[in-house]
């Protein structure tokens, strides 16, 4: 049985989650989210995968989109709900406790945009394959897939420098939040294989953070 002390730490995890993730991504996350959500238009139907504390959902709703946020952690959803209420955007955002594997219940071609911040790196290989397939189905033709996530450096030298540093950060963040992420390998390739066109794929200099914009072929071309 998990011990009392451990439970106490877990209990307070979501409130520390934002802090932990900020440390893990060294502060670049907010800017990446701003850049990605600048592609969201007023009136768009937007799906937020792994909405967490609602960082992406809030930004999209502020641009006038109708957002559906899904997450499997009920405490995260509660935190997000409280933030949305405080920002007076409750009528534009709906949060549901739901995993990505239940996306097959969503209607085909029902979203203009799907976005995801630090969610793909928490998925198993099987889940990732399943999710990309379903996203291709539920996005409207020409719809956008926006991803901000951890990446694994492709250059061996950078990988050698980054690995120990990341290990240290991960242990620290795990102690703090019991959260960890598994950096993604070849996500752009996997997205392309799933039938998307890559609009832009941007790695930071240390190749540890990926911003990806992909489009489902067809529909309105810009």
């Amino acid at each position, binding site marked *: *049985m998990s011990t*009392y002390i451990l439970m106490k730490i877990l209990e307070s995890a979501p409130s520390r989650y934002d802090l932990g993730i900020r440390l893990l991504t060294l502060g670049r996350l907010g800017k990446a989210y701003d850049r990605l959500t600048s592609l969201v238009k007023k009136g768009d139907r937007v799906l937020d995968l792994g909405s967490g504390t609602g960082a992406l959902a809030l930004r999209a709703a502020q641009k006038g989109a109708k957002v559906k946020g899904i997450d*499997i952690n009920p405490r995260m959803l509660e935190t997000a709900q409280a933030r949305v209420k405080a920002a007076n955007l409750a009528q534009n955002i709906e949060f549901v406790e739901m*995993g990505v*594997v239940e996306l097959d219940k969503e209607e085909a071609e029902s979203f203009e945009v799907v976005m995801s911040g630090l969610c793909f790196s928490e998925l198993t290989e*099987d889940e990732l394959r399943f999710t990309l397939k379903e996203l291709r189905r539920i996005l409207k033709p020409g719809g956008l897939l926006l991803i901000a996530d951890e990446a694994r450096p492709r250059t061996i030298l950078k990988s050698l420098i980054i690995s120990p540093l990341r290990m240290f950060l991960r242990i620290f963040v795990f102690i703090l939040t019991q959260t960890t992420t598994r950096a993604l390998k070849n996500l752009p390739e996997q997205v392309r294989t799933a039938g998307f066109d890559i609009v832009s794929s941007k790695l930071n200099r240390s190749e540890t953070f990926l911003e990806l914009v992909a489009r489902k072929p067809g529909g309105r071309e810009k």
Partner: protein
Amino acid sequence: MRFLGYAVANVFETLLRLLPFPCRTGLIKIGKPQKDSPVFLTCNYHLTVQRVKRALKGMDAYLLIANSRGINVWCAAAGGHLTNHEVISVLKTSGIEGLVGHRQVILPQLAATGVELKIIKEKTGWRIIWGPVYAKDIPVFMQNKMKAGRMEREVKFPFIQRLEVAISWAFSLSLLAGIIAAIFFPRVFVPLILFIWGLSLATFIFYPLYGSWLSSGKGSLTFSLLVWGVILLALVLYSHLSSGISWRFLIRWGIISFVFVFITTLDLKGGSPLLAGGFEELKVTIDEDKCRGAAFCETVCPRNCYDVNRKKHKAILPRAERCVLCGACIIQCPFDALYFKNPEGEVILPGTMRKYKQNLLGKRVMKTGNNR
């Protein structure tokens, strides 16, 4: 060669038991499974997977590994890391649905604190069968036509497990304390490490001698003070016998032993699978009107607290004092007939338990009490 790998994994992951060891999730084939072969599901704590694979040796079966973030079944289920979502995910994405003709999946019984039979059936069509607590009992379970007997449904704390817990505690503690001691107090390094190991081993090996005393409602604090008192006495005796009482020696080791006795023993109840840790004031309560004697509680209780009166169709709790407050019975009851209650009469309802698990059984949840 394979046995060597198994042994190394056992030693290494026992020493570092306090850390998660995730392994690959998804589908594993055991032997030559067919369309009607049984399907087992477990967590992705590496050592657990190794032990389950060993228990399944010689069978033809499918083994699904759900993403519990590298944490063992009971802790992950109680802490919200092995929930409906992880089970639904591996059932839907591993490809198992195309491989077998049936829809029956065997889960370890301890997952019942986190995974809801009803929801899995509704969302996937798969029927959960609760397997034994320990992987080593899987062969017996299969011989009994997939029924776990009373023995296989109960959590135990045998010598070998107590030794594992003692070693994992001692190793982590001596690693942390050892680094600090090596830098700042190199002279106490060796006796300190010996003290930590001696204390951990003694605490858990002698558990049967004081376990029943602890469970009789005595606080852990009293116990910790008692242990510390004994050690102080031994220290005084030692310094008296050796070279007369040295106050510096007594104070130094008095403080050191105080710190480590409290770290090791204060959460003994939470650390042992046989005692309720933390929220002892809670009691599982049966709502007589709602209970229909369906015996879900009896099946999932890892402490065999329940009996079911088959004539009256009512569950009873003749061994309530054994309860560890895992909440499995509350979560699984199809009629919401069970709930937690504290001496002030506040309650934690099944819905709250299902949503937050043990993870969040804190004050925050208690505030919602009394709304039954």
